[in-house]
């Protein structure tokens, strides 16, 4: 029943962590933000986003808080925990290693 993710496998966690690293955001905003920054290339489906958010929360990397949006409606805002910040650094490091390696291969050939 799972919808195909448009993202490279395993990178959604990194994108989410990175997106909320500056300020807490709710699910909709996270999806929109990723879409905007990537110039509409990366489309995060709800079917991937919410399971990923809940999984990260269960693992203790992000925490959720209910607060009001600018329009006054209650929404669930996600923010990084201390452990999540460490995890983000780890994932960014491994991502830059991976993408650098892929670039090397792709450009040299």
């Amino acid at each position, binding site marked *: 029943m799972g919808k195909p993710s448009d993202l490279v496998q395993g990178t959604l966690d990194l994108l989410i962590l990175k997106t909320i690293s500056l300020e807490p955001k709710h699910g909709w905003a996270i999806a929109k933000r990723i879409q905007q920054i990537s110039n509409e290339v990366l489309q995060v489906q709800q*079917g991937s986003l919410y399971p990923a958010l809940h999984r990260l929360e269960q693992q203790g990397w992000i925490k959720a808080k209910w607060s009001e949006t600018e329009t006054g409606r209650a929404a669930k805002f996600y923010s990084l*925990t201390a452990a999540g910040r460490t995890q983000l650094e780890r994932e960014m490091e491994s991502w830059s290693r991976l993408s650098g390696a892929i670039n090397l291969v792709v450009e040299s050939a």
Partner: protein
Amino acid sequence: MRWFEQIRISMRMLFRRSTETARLNEELQFHLEQQVKENMVQGMLPGEARAAAVRSFGNPGVLRDQARATWSWNWFETFLRDIRYGARTLMRSPGFTLVSILVLVLGIGATTSLFTIVRAVLLKPLPFQHPDQLVMVYEHFRGSSSNSGDGFNVVSSGDFVDWRRQTHGFQDMAAWRWYGFDLTGEHAELPEVVEAAGGSSSLFSLLGVQPAFGRTFSAAEDQPEASHVVMISWSLFQRRFSGDASILGKQIHLDATPYTIIGVLPSWFTYPEAKVQLWVPYAQTFSPEAYAKHDSHQSHVVARLKSGVSAAAGTKEVSALQYQMHLAHASAAVAEDAVYRPMIDDVVRDVKTPLIVLLCAVGCMLLIACLNVSNLLVARAASRRKEVAVRGALGGSRLTLIREQMTESLLICIVGGLLGLLLSMLATRWLAGHWRDLPRADAIQLDGFVLAFSIGLIFLTTLLAGLLPAISSTGKGVLAALQESSRSIGGSASRAVLRKTMLTAEIALTVILLVSAGLLFKSFIHLRTTELGCVTENVLTVKYGLPEKQYDTRTKVVAFHETLLDRVRRIPGVHAAALVSTPPGGGYESDNVFTITEHPSPSFNIQNDAMTRTADPSYFAVMQIPLIRGRFFTEHERFTNDHFIIINKKFADQFLFGDNPIGRHVNTAWGTKTESFEIIGVVGNTLYDVAEPVKAMMYFPILSGIPDQTGSATIVVRSAVDPLLLSVPIQQQVASLDPALPVYDVLTMQQILGQTTASQSFSATLVLAFAGLSLLLAGVGLYGVLSYLVTQRIAEIGIRIALGAQKAEVLRLVFFDGLRPVFLGLLIGLAGGATAGALIRSILYGTSPFDPVVLAGMVGCLLLTAILACAVPAIRASRIEPMQALRIE
């Protein structure tokens, strides 16, 4: 700190699950609203914007499930929900649930019980040191296996002594033999007859048995005329000496001879059987002449393998030596070869086949039970197909649906299995207690291994009963299932095929069980109605054995026998009394080889062998054994005028070839040396064991009085009243003659018959019960399938009737539709039954595995059940009102 956070979340997820669920819904709702808002910003109308948002959002139910799947405790929640759903659906049809559970309780309970017994008796190693190194070595007479017995002949003491001394293929060898004593104390304690055994000095060290107190026999004590010592069993130690260890070194009287107690065996030592109360040195059970004999067979030889030397190689060396001995004693009954079998096989050989047959029978029954539950589940699944299809269409994953159905069968199986386990605890105790002569029965207990087995069994039955229906009912494409169930004419062909296949298997298994049970039961009936060859109503038998030390002359022995007989005959209620060494049905006693002077055979022939009995002049008349020729013994065949024998009809037919036997002479060793005996009479055949064929028999005169040949006797008494009432008066007469002489085996002829047939009756009754239950299950299964098929085809049948089909045609249609798998199953089952019959041939008496009566009876039984099961749905189908049927959907 991350672990702390994780635990906190995990606790919140466990205890505030409903709040979390509400929050998840809220979160998703918010997302949807944002999407609607964005759509409206882009210029859509509110309704349009909402529809587009919902479309792009996807199935909210699935989305929610996916998010929840990441929560901790999700597995637990799913599990609980499955259990709840399963329990709820099961409660909705309590009849089905109850029947299924009951079926499984019986199936799992019986299988666990039988497995417990099989494990303790057949699978557990013997309680000795390195039991896999132990083998039993026997003599083997060439050409004897075709005649009688299994080719494993007990060993003579002379052979054993030479084997042990002259061969080196085994680490060591030991011998033991059955023996019996009258046990009395030094003072006036009550006398009793004890089962005893003679064991060679090497026996206990070879088995690795340490005495609980004292020591075992030394080699010096294991000589025919060495000082008398005895080891007592733990049970005798507790029972007669109240566990007082100071008994060591004291004396007890065995057959009026003092024996010094040197050791007490541990309580777990029950070899060869628990009834053995004491052990004496092997050689001391023989006179010096008898100990050296090579042609008198009575001993069992245990050998321990040498490392690196196989049992076959060790036995080969023994066998070569045995052949030398055979050549050296060409005219005597000395075997040519030696053979071996593992000790464990030797211990369990009588019960191995019946046990395996019973285990297979319960296994079959369990399989039938599984198929039945499976079949019933398929039927229920079929009626719930629309529900399943709708749930599939709404996004329920196939795995979830399968899991839910499996939970149902798991619930049935777990409840059934746990109750079955309880049942088996009771049943095992009962079985072990009621199975006569079950070796190693004391080792039977429910342990972790058995528990693991039954848990495995429960899960296996769950899989068997649940997986097939679960897969088959969820496999269809959603659309096809929805279409099909909305207007089902003709039903689902594939599912009907599945059910019919299961039904065929069920019928085939039932037929196999029925045939086996029928064969066992017929052979049991055959045993019960076998004519022993003598009167069996109102006859009491009482045994006693005169100790040779005290009754050491012919006069003393005959005087005792005659006085006792005279006194017993005067007891009120006694019609007649007589003496014989062993009554009909009472067992083997002994046999002798012989030659006939008037029919000399060219060389020694092992086939010239007959059983021996001693009898008094009135025995044949009292037991109503008919005289065929000649005469009975008289008062004159007594003391040394004893060279006369009476033979049975089988003897005359087998060895005298129609010649008149009277006046012919038989040369045999009754006593120590071979002498000539004149045949004076021929009497009717009697059986020594109801389960065995007639054997040639020679009767010697008991009034001869030779102490070691006529000292043990059975007094047989016929009465007008219940013969057991006479047992005390007879014992009083024995005690008045010799207060130290105990009597034993006080049994009526009916009890003797019952004892021999007890184990046959036991296994036959059990297998018959299993078969009957399976027949019932198959009937229920057949009825269930047919009823279901008819329900499926109501519309079709309605149309047929509307179009003019006659009732009879409809009846025939449904009827034969149901009987087809029955016939197929019957054919397969008959083939299987014949195979099973051939496999259990060794425990059938007077019954061929292809017995036509049994086969016809059992097939008839099954067909009758099948016809009944098919008739009800068929009649129901023929009464369908076409208008009503078409309106049903």
